[in-house]
């Protein structure tokens, strides 16, 4: 332990639902992945590379969820992303000419430079496999990559513990195959914790997870250190770290948070709408409808209509990001200084965010992180960045508290994922899980086509269980798509189930689903057996 007064654990949750549509030449919702790649994931890697080159040490905890890892390693999506990136490079090169001697010249140059750098990293440094980049920084000890529920399944709404066990086991298995070791931590989807589910984490060697503040504050007994130190779950000893609301609010708040600064990039004014149609058409989807293409030339400006937004100046925005990073650090210093008068140990502040907030929504969020890492490393020694494992090594003794059921969603519990707009799905999710268990128990050693069918059945189930669909139904964005995805997986599950119990498996049908819903190539349906669950519960 050094002279620092306390610690800051920065946690980014990187996740997208598994979206891949080989049956279409291009597909709109696949863009979520390409946009996040070029605006968040590769830019983050670019920052890590830069900091490392400059000798600036940093610590960051990041979940890379299994669906995201599967997409990052999917040959079709890699190819399509390559095309997406090439198009951006091509367009941004044209834009340098078009904007020459206009107020947009500097922003056009910015895009060209960034896209070229990201292309260089993607192709030449990581050879199309960005996970290799993340793994590199994990191996260097700077980045702690944690896993998530297999398909971001919402554990407290799973009645059968077999489903919980499978969500954790599948995720841990996927993690090991990609990173060559056990995941030490997990981001429970939506931070949704149900007392006792930590048994399934412990079984996979997972040492810690995150909860919303009241997960620990409402824990039993009263947590001595509030949210400023982890607690251990009874019986399993898995550690729970809770979110600090003060630092969350500084970044998240729509009104007073940093991302609303008027000099930052405006999200809703996009070249896809601004440019001459024939000029921009080659960069739109095949249906030719104008949509965002991810190049934006205006700043937030103020509360004015979109057509009155002013030109964006990258250097000005970058300077603001540096100021905000300084302000964030200053506030953490003050916070930790005050907390250290109340605690008889060095306080830990856990700041958790969706990764896609940085870069995608808050374009300059990537610069903000870069400046924050540098300032914390070079400019002061009162606070230090830390990972949860490093903290646990420093303070192995922690209070034993049973965390409360909770989530980080609106109102703090399950309302977002269970309300009158989406409650119809649970009848099918739960029934399908029950049927999956029934078949896993009935066929303990299936081979050949039956085995393939059962594994695909398990894939349809986990895809159906993605909490993203219920979330999107509630927010109303992509409601049509999320409803269709849920129904498609239910239908495919039922069809396959009927084929299996009717002993009439159609190999063509199985093959078709294997191509489309290709997540978890290593899927083993036996993870759903009741014996697998009982084996875990018997231990703790």
């Amino acid at each position: 332990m050094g002279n620092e007064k306390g610690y800051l654990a920065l946690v980014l949750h990187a996740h997208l639902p598994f979206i891949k549509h080989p049956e279409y030449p291009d597909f709109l919702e696949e863009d979520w992945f390409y946009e996040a790649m070029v605006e968040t994931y590769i830019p983050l890697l670019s920052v890590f590379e830069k900091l490392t080159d400059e000798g600036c040490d940093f610590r960051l905890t990041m979940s890379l969820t299994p669906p995201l890892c599967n997409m990052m390693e999917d040959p079709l999506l890699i190819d399509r992303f390559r095309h997406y990136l090439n198009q951006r490079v091509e367009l941004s090169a044209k834009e340098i000419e078009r904007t020459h001697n206009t107020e947009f010249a500097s922003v056009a140059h910015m895009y060209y430079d960034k896209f070229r750098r990201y292309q260089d990293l993607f192709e030449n440094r990581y050879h199309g496999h960005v996970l290799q980049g993340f793994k590199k920084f994990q191996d260097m000890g700077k980045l702690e990559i944690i896993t998530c529920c297999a398909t971001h399944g919402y554990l407290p709404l799973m009645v059968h513990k077999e489903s919980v066990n499978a969500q954790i086991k599948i995720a841990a298995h996927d993690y090991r195959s990609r990173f060559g070791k056990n995941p030490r931590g997990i981001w429970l989807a939506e931070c949704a914790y149900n007392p006792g589910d930590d048994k399934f984490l412990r079984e996979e060697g997972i040492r810690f997870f995150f909860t919303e503040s009241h997960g620990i504050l409402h824990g039993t007994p009263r947590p001595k250190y509030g949210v400023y130190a982890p607690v251990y779950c009874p019986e399993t000893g898995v550690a729970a770290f809770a979110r600090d609301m003060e630092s969350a609010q500084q970044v998240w708040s729509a009104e007073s948070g940093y991302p609303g600064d008027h000099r930052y990039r405006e999200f809703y004014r996009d070249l896809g709408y601004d440019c001459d149609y024939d000029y921009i058409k080659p960069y739109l989807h095949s249906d030719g409808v104008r949509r965002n293409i991810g190049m934006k030339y205006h700043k937030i400006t103020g509360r004015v209509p979109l057509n009155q937004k002013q030109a964006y100046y990258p250097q000005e925005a970058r300077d603001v990001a540096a100021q905000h990073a300084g302000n964030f650090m200053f506030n953490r210093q003050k916070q930790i200084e005050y907390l250290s008068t109340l605690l008889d140990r060095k306080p830990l502040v856990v700041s958790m965010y969706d990764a896609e907030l940085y870069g995608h929504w808050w374009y300059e969020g990537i610069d903000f992180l870069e400046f924050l890492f540098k300032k914390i490393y070079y400019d002061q020694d009162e606070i230090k960045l830390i990972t949860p494992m490093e903290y646990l090594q420093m303070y192995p003794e922690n209070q034993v508290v049973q965390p409360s059921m909770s989530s980080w969603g609106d109102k703090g519990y399950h309302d977002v994922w269970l309300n009158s707009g989406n409650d119809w799905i649970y009848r099918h999710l739960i029934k399908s899980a029950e049927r999956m268990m029934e078949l896993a128990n009935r066929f303990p050693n299936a081979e050949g086509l039956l085995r393939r069918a059962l594994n695909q059945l398990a894939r349809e189930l986990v895809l159906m269980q993605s909490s993203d669909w219920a979330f999107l139904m509630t927010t109303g964005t992509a409601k049509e798509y999320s409803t269709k995805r849920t129904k498609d997986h239910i239908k495919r599950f039922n069809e396959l189930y009927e084929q299996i119990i009717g002993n009439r498996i159609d190999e063509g049908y199985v093959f078709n689903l294997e191509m489309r819903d290709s997540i978890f190539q290593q899927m083993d349906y036996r993870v759903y057996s009741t014996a697998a669950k009982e084996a875990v519960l018997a231990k703790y």
Partner: protein
Amino acid sequence: MATNLSSASLIKPLVRDRQTEADIPSGYGKTESYLLPKDPAWMFLFWEITQSTIDYLKEQYGTALNAARTIIRLHDITGVSLFNGTNSVKYYDMPVIFEAKSWYINAPESGRAYIADLGYLTDDGRFILVTRSNATAIPPGRVSNVIDDKWMIVEGDFQKLLKLSGADYIGLGASELMQVVGQRWKLTELTPSGAPTSWSSFALHLDKVQEDEDIWLNADCEITIYGSASKNAIVTINGQEIELKDGKFTIHRHLSAGDIVDLPIHARNAKGDKTRRVDIKAVREPGK
């Protein structure tokens, strides 16, 4: 997943999914029910009851079923290791329409475990079980009053830590996050010990609006009045004194068709020299 990444609509399908023609099933042909937790105050129960189950019960119990009411019997099974249908801590009956297939249940107490039975309540008070749900537990929604001897807390410091951990953000402006935080923290702000409350059983009167083949409608209504008052205050609702537990109260009241109720709530301090008053009126129109 966080923020929506794209608000765009779906591209028209070029190839039809082999299965898209048929819709998903409305049921799975098995009588069963499941209970899910929603938050410290609510649970979600959904069920399927097959015609053969109904036929079987009619055969077994005959005319007794015709006059029987359909109810959810919610059992509090906290601390019960093996529930056998009768050994619950207590149970609560609430009217339900089987055809609804799902129901949001207002939990009488937070931080407890429940099982919901669906069944018939006959005129002579017999309960005939149709289906029993899984057990589910709901969170306490407040700070625990269990103190850890090994990790002693200085009360003042703990209150400060609670505030620092987020309580400060309540009601500070209108941003989305602040609203969210505020709503979350309302639960914490409740008195940090003890449990609610009294639960008054209510009459079971479904409002059946003239049935005919083409259109029918069943609806029922229950209102919940809850609140808190200063310590030692004497609180009355419509003149009747109610019991406060740790300063809190909850009253459930069934509203029958055509009911107009006045529920003035009065509180007076122990000395009797100060009073506060909240007026609640509710109207239920008759079915048409």
